[in-house]
């Protein structure tokens, strides 16, 4: 669910940034404005990596979500809040809510398996000759990732928002 974002995020933004008067924002330097979309894309990609790595190693949904939220915050500082909102496509609050839904449903999957709530269930499908381990804890963690991304991005964008945005 999180993957389409890095591809989409930087696209509409450079043009948006150039339209604005340079006097408006303190952080509005040419270097920062040019670099921000690439930085954001890299950070979102990295956040997905941290999320998936988190099952057995340091990382996970919470920290990944924080990295993704800071990526969007950087984009917001560089190009204004409305650019981020357009790039995200969905309302950040709705992203958080979708994450909560995903996590809850991940817990409810154990209903079908006749085991208590939130019991870890695993499947090992063979995709292109590689055994991929998929599990409900991972789904839960993706939900956490979305909740944190959505909630912190909502807060960050509200703080960065100006009257004219």
């Amino acid at each position, binding site marked *: 669910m999180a993957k389409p974002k890095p591809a989409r995020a930087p696209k509409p933004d450079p043009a948006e940034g150039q339209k604005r008067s340079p006097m408006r924002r303190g952080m509005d330097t040419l270097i920062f404005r040019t670099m921000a979309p690439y930085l954001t894309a890299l950070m979102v990609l990295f956040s997905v990596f941290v999320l998936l790595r988190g099952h057995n190693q340091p990382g996970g949904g919470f920290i990944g979500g924080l990295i993704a939220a800071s990526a969007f915050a950087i984009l917001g500082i560089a190009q204004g809040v409305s650019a981020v909102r357009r790039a995200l496509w969905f309302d950040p609050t709705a992203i958080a*809510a*979708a994450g909560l*839904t995903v996590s*809850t449903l991940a817990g409810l999957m154990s209903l079908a398996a006749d085991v208590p709530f939130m019991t870890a269930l695993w499947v090992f499908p063979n995709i292109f000759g590689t055994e991929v381990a998929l599990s409900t804890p991972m789904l839960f963690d993706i939900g956490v990732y979305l909740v944190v991304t959505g909630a912190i991005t909502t807060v960050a964008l509200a703080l960065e928002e100006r009257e004219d945005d």
Partner: protein
Amino acid sequence: MAANSIPLEALEKSMVLAPVPAAHWLVIAPPVWCLLLGAILIMVRKRPGLQAWLAIPALAALVLIDAALLFAVTREGPVTMVMGRWLPPFGIAFTVDLTGALFNLTGGIAALAGGIAALGDIDRTKRAYGFYPFLLLMVGGVSGAFLTGDIFNLYVWFEVLLISSFGLIILGSERAQLDGATKYAILNLIGTTLFLIAVGILYAVFGTLNMADIAAKAPKLGEIPPLMTLGLIFIAAFSMKAAAFPVNFWLPASYHTPRIVVAGLFAGLLTKVGVYALLRVMVMIFPQEGNAYSLLIGVVAILTMLTGALGALAQSDLRRMLGYIVITGIGIILSGVALGGQTAIAGALFYAMHSMIVMLALYLMAGVAGRMGGSFSLHDLSGLYARSPLLAAITLALFFSVSGLPPFSGFWPKAMLVKATFDFGAWWQGGVILVSGLLTTIAVMRAFALGWWRMPVSGTVEPARIEASEAVPLVGLTLLSLGIGLYPEPLLALAQTAAAGLLEPTAYLHSVFPGLSPLGGPLP
């Protein structure tokens, strides 16, 4: 795959291997249902028209789930489900006994009534701001707090309901609301921080956070210093949430600012979560420490009752008066907790349930009165009887109920508590319950005389209609209070059984640790 490589004996010691009966899913159903629906409602935040149509059926379904859970608990005793299959005390347990199920059902009914009343009270713009999602999430937090069997998990649910309540209290973002919300937020944050500190010390002492595990281990430690201190911190934390004297000032200072439905839900639900936590911790988990502090709780109860009743007498704003009446009710419940013993605890439980229903109804009534009279101030409010006799009848019924006059629901728990105090020899406590009842009667009848009976202060009186969204929850709750008052036996019996279960939690402990020996302590 990984599970197959571990020998079965090792698995048996760490995991629940038996299949889960469907009834056990009811234990976690209320919070999970609320969180799921709350999340869906946030996703459709931009469509306020759709929100109510999703939220109200969801709340009705919640009441059915809660009722089914209560039925299951009355049939087979406390029910436990551990998260993620890990055996307690390592897996987080949700354990529901009769007390939790009763609180949970009453809370669900109050939430449904509040959801319906919000149709009229919360307009579309404020609904777009997120009334229903916050309501669902708050109710999820409340029911999670009533149902969990793990004390740290209880703290987490406290946070869930607090954060959602912050969202509800500032709905509309008016100046007065932000002022009230600040007081509310700071006091509650201090309360929950104290709670968290207490949980930390508890973990250091016992090495476990499972309530049943602690309850089984606590008698062996006895009245040692850390437990007494711990008990005091818990009492302080929960009193702050419940708005007991001397930390009650935040309630009347903030509850008159939000929308009337929100104030009613807070008055009905949130203070009772503090009471519930106090009952669970000081009566079930630490009975010895609870007994040792019974004099302290008793004095706090008396002062809470008196400040509440006197405060109610002194107010000229209908909503502020109700805020003080909430506090009186908390004092009455606390006096039951202070006494201990089955009748007193049963009376406290019964009163808490009565108070959840009647306080919400009173706030909703005040909302209608304020809309009809154009003001909440008793200086301006007048001639409401002429405007709407139906509202006057409902008001009178609710005022009787909250003062503890028969035939309404407030009478029985008060009678039980007064009887318990006199049986116990604590006549002064029983006397204060009666005096506070008298003062409350005077306060509400003064409001009735001024607002309803008095000839209109200015202008002519036009008959006013009660909207359907106001009438349905108001009449429903009033009839519920009347019904309980006229036919109290089932609830009385349930409250007695629930109190017995709190005082002698063997069944609760067995539900979590089926192999527990009768002397306490898990079998090897």
